[in-house]
């Protein structure tokens, strides 16, 4: 399998784990040095903003505590399309840019009798990933989700 195919596989595998809320399986695709962030540029305040920044340890805390937090249980579904993969010269790492649309399949977020079953666009953005290639597998070193949204009616306690 080529480096590009390996990277694509890892990104799509991550998408499926996140959709299935298998948070620890997703984290198993990440290196110990993994850095995760959700960012957005604001034309309102002219500022590159960070909405969430976490390392792997932070993410473990975050997902471990999910059962203790009230949340909107409407599942999220990511439609990820890998646009480009750029392997490094030595082939040991690669960067990738993917477009991502995240839909929310309404369950209990607002008024379940009316809204449940409907799918709404939740956020749109791009995954900017950096991976290392190890034993033929892509391991995430860094993921930045660059959101286009600055209107976030209800956010999420879940990693995106």
């Amino acid at each position, binding site marked *: 399998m080529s480096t590009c195919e390996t990277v694509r596989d890892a990104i799509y595998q991550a998408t499926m784990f996140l959709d299935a809320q298998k948070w620890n399986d997703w984290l198993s695709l990440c290196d110990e040095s993994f850095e995760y962030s959700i960012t957005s540029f604001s034309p*309102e305040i*002219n500022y590159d903003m960070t909405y*969430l920044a976490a390392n792997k*340890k932070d993410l473990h*805390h975050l997902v471990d505590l999910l059962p203790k937090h009230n*949340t909107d249980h409407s599942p999220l579904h990511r439609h990820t399309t890998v646009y480009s993969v750029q392997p490094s010269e030595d082939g040991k790492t690669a960067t990738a840019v993917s477009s991502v649309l995240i839909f929310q399949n309404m369950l209990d977020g607002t008024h379940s009798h009316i809204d449940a079953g409907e799918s709404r666009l939740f956020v749109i953005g791009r995954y900017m990933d950096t991976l290392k290639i190890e034993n033929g597998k892509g391991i995430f070193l860094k993921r930045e989700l660059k959101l286009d949204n600055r209107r976030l*009616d*209800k*956010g999420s306690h879940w990693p995106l």
Partner: protein
Amino acid sequence: MAARNHNQWMAKPPLEQGEWIDSRVYTDHEIFEEENEKIFKSTWIPVCHESELPKPYDFRTSSIAREPIIVCRGPDNQVRAFLNVCPHRGMMIERRPSGSFYEGQPSGNPKRMTCMFHGWQFDMKGSCVYVSREKEGYQDRLCKDDVGLRRLRCEVKFGGFVWVNLNDKAPDLETWAGKPFECLRKSLEAEPLEVFHYHKAIVDTNYKLWHDTNCEFYHDFMHYHNRVTGFNDAYFARKNEAFDNGHIVVGTFEVNYDKYEGFESRAALSFPHLPPNQWYMIDLFPGINFNLRGSALRCDVVTPLGPNKTMIEFRGLGLKSDSKEDRMTRINHHNSIWGPFGRNLHEDLIGVQGQGNTMLPGTEARRVLHGRQENQTIHDENGMRHYYDEWGRWLNRLPSSPDKPYSAPKETEAVTAAE
């Protein structure tokens, strides 16, 4: 008594006037329009922060009570506000959320606000400086001096927020909000602040329900984070202090951030003059909230869009002098609780939207209880009682029976006497 029948459900609760309200104040279209007219067009609203327009000719657009507003910084460095409306034919002059007039635009010269429709131009003081083919069209019947922009009252205050009031006759900002800001004035004014976070939410709920949530801490039962970092003797002794004009201040205590797994003390980056890990909150009538948790300041501003639709703008601020590392730490502290993916904000929004879903226009009136009395400490609902008393005065409506004229509840007199 177990579950109640309709008459029991609709009966007056066994509480005093002022300790409960009728939910029609959240659902009635006529009341909503009256609020826009009588309250929002006469109160001070912080439409942005001065750091959002750092250089001369920078601008920022906003709205209050459906009126479009533009705030710009002049070459004299002064921030001014105007209706964002061309006096010619009522076109919105500037449509971008922010930017600069320093450079020319497709329809106009540099350093001017230009209406793209017919090319009329205005300077940073709102004076009309160019009317296209003025002489040919008006033959001296109308000149530029007659058609300046509508100037709005504007003050930069309380940590550099840009406050605008549509009413030329309203009390000045210091009179309106000075006293509640005393608790934070030294911290907010010690050195310039800077906005690092902006996002907004539009939720199907009434704007007062959002403000209610900010005014009461009884809802901390919803937040696991707050329960573990706060619930102790010092927390329960924290006071809700009522001020004139419907404002309240929630007093301070030391938050135990390290009780929450993965969190850390905020002490190293406390705002100036603020003891470590303290937390103050100022709730201004009719729907503005300043929330300082040690290292980061949050400001919420509501824009009512309908009886059951509210826009809330969230800003996070740090010190302008922050190093890159300190700024990132402040951002993380802010976001971990108040960001859209943080521990608390998401839950607060679910809470008020749940209320909005049960209190839609046309639903039967509910009796909403504000009767917890705990010596004005953190779970006392005096903040909401104080708010609705002020609301009743502005609209001349009784909050527990909004078809009737306002009359003061007994408790209001007690609160006033305590002040």
